[in-house]
């Protein structure tokens, strides 16, 4: 395994991303989006696409920048620092990875649409309150040359705004089985598909999708029938690693805000950051963040080098990042005191996004169990 340190190129990418996001997507932008009832700013996504972020995993021959998973993680991490909302994870990471694993001109065109910033995707996967792809019950029944999709999906990230939907459907087997699942790539406006945005705590786009006999052609089937996992597994690996990176960035963001507050807030005629009780907690949090940073870098490296054997690295990153972000936001709110409880202050945004990130694509228990399984117990 190569070094987990950032290369010079990666440092440049990180600095450039930080500079851009501080100007174009500060937390004030998230607040403005929320107050306007807008899950994200399409103009921001166009700018990200122009910088090559939408095509971070798209091959060059499809117009992408093909920078790889470590780079995607760095971008995601920096977005986490200021809680920048965008279709990046759903579209540029998850959908792009699934499409890369589906051969053919159709997938290539779809990738080109992603890289250009024209197409955005949502992955319609889970049907219950926990991440469990194999529990898919939504049926895709043969109908003529195509399929008819019926069922419901919930907690679909970017589900109300995406132009296309990747939907996991059952073409065989029974809920609970990993076999018999197929992945469809359909237009989000297709007849019979209704989308209802959920009013979630993080003010981002999560939706419930109801499929009422939605027609899908054979051409809409991505990859082979009953072969969704061949595409979905790498797509989820990529998404989980990038989400972990976002959570690590989120921990960096709230931690920096909290340290700033510890230095400036005065009580008992001294800066509260001079109290050892708070210093030790801040130092412990920093240690946790450092350890998580390594797991994030490792997941990116493994996905770039040995993507077929990435489960351990990815789940390690998501488990660590979930725990660390949780600690960072709890300490952040507590150390800010009353001001951190007010909506006028930004600390709460971190706590709400951390909670959503903890659940999305598998919670701590899900990923810790996968680490244990990969380690033989």
């Amino acid at each position, binding site marked *: 395994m190569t070094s987990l*340190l950032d290369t010079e190129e990666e440092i440049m990418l990180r600095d450039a991303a930080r500079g851009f996001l501080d100007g174009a997507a500060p937390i004030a932008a998230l607040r403005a989006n929320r107050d306007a009832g807008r899950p994200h700013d399409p103009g921001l996504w166009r700018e990200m696409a122009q910088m090559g972020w939408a095509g971070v995993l798209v091959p060059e021959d499809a117009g992408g920048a093909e920078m790889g998973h470590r780079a995607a993680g760095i971008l995601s991490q920096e977005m986490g620092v200021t809680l920048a909302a965008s279709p990046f994870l759903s579209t540029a990471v998850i959908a792009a990875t699934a499409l890369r694993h589906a051969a053919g001109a159709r997938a290539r065109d779809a990738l080109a649409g992603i890289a250009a910033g024209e197409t955005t995707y949502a992955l319609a996967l889970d049907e219950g309150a926990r991440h469990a792809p194999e529990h898919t019950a939504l049926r895709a029944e043969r109908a003529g040359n195509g399929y008819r999709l019926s069922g419901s999906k919930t907690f679909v990230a970017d589900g109300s705004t995406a132009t296309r939907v990747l939907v996991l459907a059952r073409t065989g087997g029974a809920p609970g089985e990993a076999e018999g699942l197929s992945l469809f790539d359909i237009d989000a406006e297709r007849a019979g598909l209704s989308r209802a945005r959920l009013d979630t705590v993080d003010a981002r786009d999560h939706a419930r999708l109801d499929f009422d006999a939605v027609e899908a052609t054979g051409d809409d089937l991505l990859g082979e029938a009953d072969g969704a996992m061949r595409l979905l597994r790498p797509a989820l690996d990529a998404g989980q690693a990038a989400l972990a990176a976002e959570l690590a960035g989120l921990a960096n963001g709230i931690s920096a805000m909290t340290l700033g507050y510890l230095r400036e807030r005065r009580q008992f005629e001294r800066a509260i950051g001079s109290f050892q009780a708070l*210093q030790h907690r*801040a130092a412990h949090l*920093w240690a946790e963040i450092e350890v998580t940073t390594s797991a994030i*870098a490792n997941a990116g490296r493994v996905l770039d080098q040995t993507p077929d054997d990435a489960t351990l690295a990815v789940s390690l990153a998501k488990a660590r990042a979930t725990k660390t972000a949780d600690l960072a936001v709890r300490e952040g709110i507590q150390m800010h005191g009353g001001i951190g409880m007010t909506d006028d202050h930004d600390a709460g945004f971190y706590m709400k996004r951390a909670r959503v990130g903890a659940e999305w694509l598998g919670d701590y228990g899900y990923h*810790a169990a996968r680490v244990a399984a990969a380690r033989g*117990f």
Partner: protein
Amino acid sequence: MPAPAIEPEQFRTQISDWIMANCPASLRNQPMSEDSIVWGGRRWTFRDDDQRLWLERARQQGLTAPRWPTEYGGGGMTRDQEKILREEMGRLGAPPPLESFGLWMLGPALLAFGNEAQKARHLPPITRGEIRWCQGYSEPGAGSDLANVQTRAEDMGDHYLVNGQKVWTSYADRADWIFALVRTDRDAPKHKGISFLLMDMETPGITTRPIRLISGKSPFCETFFDNVKVPKENLVGEVNRGWDIAKYLLTHEREMIGGGARGLLGGRSLGAFIDDLDDGALTDPVIRTEAMAAEVDTLAFAMTMERYKDHAEAGGGVGNASAMLKYYGTELNKRRYELLMSAAGSDALEWDGPHGTLAAEWLRTKANSIEGGTSEVMLDIIAKRVLELPSA
């Protein structure tokens, strides 16, 4: 050993071939235990011939100190090569041929601060396991406040005269030489009057007394200095600048103690160790949950050790951040041993029971977060020097 220019994969093959051909079969894939460690020294007796043979063969190849220059008995390896060596030894279950404070601490200090004569005299016997060193840092009044050392070394013209007492000197009763912090200027501010002195433990006036610990073992001693005459050539670096060396070594020590969490289980999963103790323990939901969490943290911590070493190697240094490795690694190690004890249940409660010395090892880990700087001192260092939080 092979030239540094060799390709990593070729190097890996050569190393593993060499280990398989030279590491005696009786030593391979054995559980770590007290008597499997070779410390060396004038009075060392090998447990068996294979232990002696393994040290002899390894040191001829410079493998006891892989990264030291070859002229001092080292292997002259790059960091990546050393990493491969470590990985292959772990994979093939070959034990370290030699462990010692000379290898871990004094050697790096001499390479950084010693003069040519000191390096040529002291380094090769360390790599051959002929001289065993101990560390004389703490004193009754200098624990967390280490710079408060009071052991005096008076300049008598042609020699130093040392008087005072050290405590927590690891294996002082079995060591041949000691490297110690001594006060050479009593009027200077406390950090500025300390020097780094080497002393032969056979010098008249040095006595040791073992301290019995809660684990029943006595790995530490009190060491007394009563009018000990020490040649002036034994002072390392500049007089009154010993604190620089002490800080440098503490960084090393902290990384090393912190790394115990990884070295302990040598790449095996915590689940596998628990399974060995009691093959039903992992069905207990609490033990299972805690084991999964500890495994997650252990793997991520091992990666962090590597990342920090890479950073140091790239010239970035680790410095105050080594406090994090020390803090995190030792707390993690304690957590892992608590879990092993829970998994083994009442079978772990005898001093020498079904699981050997597990109870003593568990108790020993409680010192990890005290020795080399307490967890609380580490958190202070992080808060003040890394996070730059304000002083009171």
